[in-house]
């Protein structure tokens, strides 16, 4: 294993009410690679993702113990300031969430929050990240239009650009293509393949084929526990655990 993981989790337990959602999670996510978290619905994939940028705290009756380490710092102790923590990671949600403003204002929203006011820098960055999300060609002549006028697929790419614009180190994705048509999904997946050169990507997905196509590493979760974690090839071709075998083989879902 690598020496300095961007993102590591140790002895993490999450309870909501009297239900234990995550059980003793220990993992170091590989840097600059796509790690897919797979598992049946309700197994805690999304909860795990939300502990990483502390969105989980917004749920009611949550109790969290253990550590989530970003560059060695526990985000539950050392980060008083959520804004600077969240600047380190972009989130791509299940459904596109355009903000109620123009396309341009969407992309630069995060930048403005972080204090960048120079219009020239904002415009440069907007173009740069819209290009990376392969949306620039479709929107460059209508940047002042409402973001809600874009198609669903375009909206999701806009959300990707918006997340990238704050220049995070880690990208968290919660089933980012589940609401999209096949062509838009493909574009998002292609972006991920480019992005993993520079970012650590955590991808929650329930589409096994997507994990096969994209993932460098795979985490298999079941009932709130990590059952198996390893290089994608190993998990898919030669899983060690019986449960993993059954899930990959389609016996449990």
């Amino acid at each position, binding site marked *: 294993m690598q020496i300095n993981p961007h993102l590591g989790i140790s002895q993490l337990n999450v309870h909501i009410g009297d239900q234990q959602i995550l059980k003793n999670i220990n993992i170091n996510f590989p840097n600059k690679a796509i790690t897919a978290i797979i598992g049946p619905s309700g197994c805690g994939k999304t909860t795990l993702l939300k502990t990483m940028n502390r969105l989980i705290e917004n749920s*009611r009756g949550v109790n969290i113990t253990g550590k989530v380490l970003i560059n060695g710092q526990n985000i539950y102790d050392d980060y008083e300031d*959520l804004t600077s923590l*969240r600047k380190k990671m972009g989130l791509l949600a299940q459904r596109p*969430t355009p903000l109620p403003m123009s396309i341009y204002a969407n992309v630069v929203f*995060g930048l403005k*929050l972080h204090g960048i006011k120079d219009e020239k820098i904002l415009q440069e960055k907007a173009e740069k990240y819209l290009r990376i999300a392969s949306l620039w060609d479709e929107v460059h002549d209508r940047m002042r239009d*409402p973001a809600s006028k874009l198609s669903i697929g375009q909206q999701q790419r806009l959300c990707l650009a918006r997340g990238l614009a*704050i220049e995070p180190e880690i990208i968290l994705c919660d089933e980012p293509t589940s609401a999209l048509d096949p062509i838009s999904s493909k574009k998002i997946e292609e972006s991920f393949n480019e992005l993993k050169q520079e970012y650590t990507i955590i991808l929650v997905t329930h589409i096994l084929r997507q994990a096969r196509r994209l993932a460098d590493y795979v985490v298999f979760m079941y009932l709130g526990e990590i059952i198996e974690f390893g290089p994608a090839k190993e998990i898919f071709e030669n899983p060690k655990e019986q449960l993993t075998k059954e899930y990959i083989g389609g016996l449990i879902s």
Partner: protein
Amino acid sequence: MMKHKYFKKLEEQFFFGLMQLATVTILFGLLFILFTILWKGIPNLSWEMISQKPQGGFYMGGGGGILNAICGSLLLGLGSTILGLLLSIPIVIWLNIYAGQYSRNAVMVRTALDMLWGIPSIVFGAFGFIIMLALGIKASLLAGIVTLTLLILPIMVRGMDEVIKTIPKELHESTLSLGATRWEMATRVILRKALPGIVTATLLGFGRAIGDAAAVMFTAGFTDNIPQKLTDPVASLPLSIFFQLGSPFEIVRGRAYAAALVLTIIILVISFLSRLITAKYQKHSR
């Protein structure tokens, strides 16, 4: 089998008929009211009516108009709507973002507001009157505005609240993930997204405030003059209509319908104007 199908069809026709009946009843009622106001109001509407204060003997058929009530109602309606907005927006933000949408406190506040919504306005009027007596305040524009604000606050808060509740959780989460604080999320994203609902709730509140007679009867008083300061008593259109309708003189009763027509027009104009102004911002929140 055939019998079952036949029954299904009959059932559908029956309920479809009921819906049509309901629609026609409501439309008929609305048109009937509008028609009555127009038919009886227009002949009595004159420039004198809306540009002059009542002169001596106005309520016995003398000259003058209802300018006192028009100005009074505008002051009361706008005053309480503005005060209501200043109070309801922070409450709605607290309910949905700080307290946690379904936390126990938020649910309690919602229940309380729903109960307040159901209380008749005369009770608000009486309540305001008791407070005024205790504090030694006379019937005035200020007391009227405060009482009306209490009356419309539940309407405005719950109206906005229901709209904000429908905003998907993912939008909250995405905004926070970009590094927004809860305050930044509330003011830059959520309120903006909910703008059409906020406008509707505000108009509902305004309509209720400007049209209510019972809440202002004890608290705002009535006068033939236009108030010069917040502590002056103030007339209002609903009370003006009430007094004139109770008159034994035919001509005075006719003027009541003219006053009702003026009130209706004011509500329509304000409603139209605010929709027009917000249409510019609304394009992002659809």
